[in-house]
């Protein structure tokens, strides 16, 4: 789950990590008032749940009220990678001498939280990683210890030559790790973390994403969620135990298992078709899921055919078949359906489908080819 910059910085501030003075605004009038209050220069920043807003013109410096006004007019309502800008953050301009990168994420290889730090902050860390990988320091955090003071010192003295800054960083980095752990984050990033002209550390930007699997125990984080239209559908799906992502094609897919779902999409594309969605009905065997899944697929008006690809493991084929029958009784499905069913209780499942006179094929590639021909 993603949150906005302003939300991330509110969390950082709660942990006493210094952030810029700023005001969240929804209208041009609010931006004007905020700019007058904060003084100049100030920065007007689009709040959208996607990266690359800078390049898209979503961040503007304002030296005057007129600047702030025109920035607000330009940014509010702007479209950034399909996201409409509905609010902006007006932040006090800060004079700084240096930009640092500090971020925490999960490292699959060491199976631990890793603290990434670089003296080359202010740009996208992926670019630094590509151009100058040695400029990124990585510290795997022992989960039994966390960031103890000595670990924080190691990072701090690698980033700062000045011991006053290092001391500030030691405190800040320990808090940053605490934020990560306390919120079940998957990313906590301050970029840039600046050294102000008066020699203090300050978070100019903040980014946080969270582990969806842990949201059940993070009600405060969950409350920050602001899903867009597609995400609402995805969340609705998640709520039903489904994993759904809308795509642009016309072949609706219902598959159990993410890998098989991806392979199904690959197969459709391989034979020249276009999948309308990724839809994983997951690893449990509740018939209602199939009903929900069918509703979800049919809510997309582009869908011309539904391809069902079930390989039964924990999901029993007879339950899938019952769910299908039930779904087709509830919803009038006017478009063709192609079904491929195999695995646990497949015999019972196929029997049920045969009785209901539904089209069944044996292999994935057959199913894909038939679906394409019917689309």
């Amino acid at each position, binding site marked *: 789950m993603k949150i906005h910059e302003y939300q991330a910085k509110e969390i950082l501030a709660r942990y006493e990590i210094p952030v810029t003075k700023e005001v969240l605004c929804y209208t041009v009038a609010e931006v004007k008032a905020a700019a007058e209050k904060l003084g100049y220069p100030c920065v007007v920043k689009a709040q959208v749940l996607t990266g690359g807003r800078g390049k898209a013109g979503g961040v503007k410096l304002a030296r005057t009220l007129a600047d702030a006004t025109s920035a607000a007019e330009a940014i509010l309502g702007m479209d950034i990678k399909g996201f409409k800008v509905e609010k902006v953050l007006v932040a006090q301009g800060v004079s700084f001498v240096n930009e640092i990168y500090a971020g925490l994420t999960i490292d699959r290889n060491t199976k631990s939280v890793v603290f990434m730090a670089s003296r080359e902050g202010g740009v996208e860390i992926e670019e630094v990683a590509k151009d100058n990988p040695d400029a990124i320091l990585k510290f795997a955090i022992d989960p039994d210890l966390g960031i103890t003071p000595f670990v924080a010192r190691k990072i701090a003295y690698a980033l700062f030559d000045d011991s006053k800054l290092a001391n500030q960083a030691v405190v800040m980095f320990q808090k940053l790790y605490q934020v990560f752990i306390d919120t079940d984050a998957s990313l906590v990033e301050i970029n840039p973390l600046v050294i102000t002209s008066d020699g203090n550390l300050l978070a100019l930007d903040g980014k946080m994403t969270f*582990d969806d699997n842990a949201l059940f125990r993070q009600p405060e984080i969950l409350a920050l969620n602001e899903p867009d239209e597609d995400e609402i559908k995805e969340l609705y799906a998640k709520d039903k135990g489904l994993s759904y992502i809308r795509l642009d094609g016309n072949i609706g897919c219902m598959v159990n298992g993410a890998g098989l779902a991806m392979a199904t*999409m690959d197969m459709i594309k391989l034979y020249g078709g276009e999948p309308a969605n*990724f839809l994983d009905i997951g690893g449990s065997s509740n018939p209602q899921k199939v009903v929900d899944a069918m509703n979800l697929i049919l809510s997309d008006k582009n869908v011309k055919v539904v391809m069902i690809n079930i390989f039964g493991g924990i999901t029993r084929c007879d339950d899938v078949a019952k769910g299908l029958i039930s779904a087709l009784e509830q919803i009038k499905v006017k478009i063709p359906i192609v079904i491929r069913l195999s695995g646990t209780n497949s015999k019972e499942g196929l029997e049920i489908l045969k009785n209901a006179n539904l089209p069944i094929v044996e292999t994935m590639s057959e199913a894909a080819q038939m679906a394409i021909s019917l689309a």
Partner: protein
Amino acid sequence: MSILVNKNTKLLVQGITGRDGGFHTQKMIDYGTNVVGGVSPGKGGQEVHGVPVFNTVADAVKKTGANTSIIFVPAAYAADAALEASEAGVGLVIIISEGVPTLDMVRITPYLKKNGTKLIGANCPGLMSPGEALVGILPVSIFKKGNIGLMSRSGTLTYEMVYQLTSSGLGQSTCVGIGGDPVAGLYYEELLQMFQDDPDTHAIVLMGEIGGDAEERAAEYIRKHVTKPVVSFIAGQTAPPGKRMGHAGAIISSGTGTAAEKIAAFESAGVQVAKQPSEIPGMLKKLLNL
């Protein structure tokens, strides 16, 4: 032979009194797996499908000598269940549960390592050594005893692959679903080594996915340590960038983890990569001169 699970496996089922735990316990018993006990706190003394239930893993291990445990408990409790199995001396733990918080996995990893407990999963279908033991939720009918070792980040994709192999007359030594979560137990490298060391595995199928760099690391490992033929398939070749496809593992982040990068890494390590699973049996037969 096989890797990890076989006729000597003495299996414990944690969460045996749940719907899925109970259902798959029966399936595993039907296949001939030696299910020696179940664990469900507060239900000690009961029986499920003739299997005795204990309150704690420690009790169960003491009474049954279990050496392997499969976990079906709800995601919020799965990591603790794995710790419990490890503390009780269980050498191999398989977490089937889906949705385990990543930091829970981070927290338990050092403890399991310290205790010498091997972990498979979470969010995985488990293992199958045809003719030896089923320790998981895989559909047994599609398997056939033989000499192909298989590992996969995806559950159902594994079944798909096994189905293709069996249909082509290629049996399997062991099939391992390693799970699709960001932090998981045994991964490609450890399993490649086990298959390399298993005399009855003649070739290896590695089913990969977009996201992360595990396939790239596997390619490097194969180049250095694996002499047996390896073929691969990467799921998600046509997935749109930036979208999370169910598995937390399957995220394409800028510049790393794309299907193209993984395929290139494999090919440079001498691993053939199939465009669709159905190509793999043919590739294997050619490599094994069958």
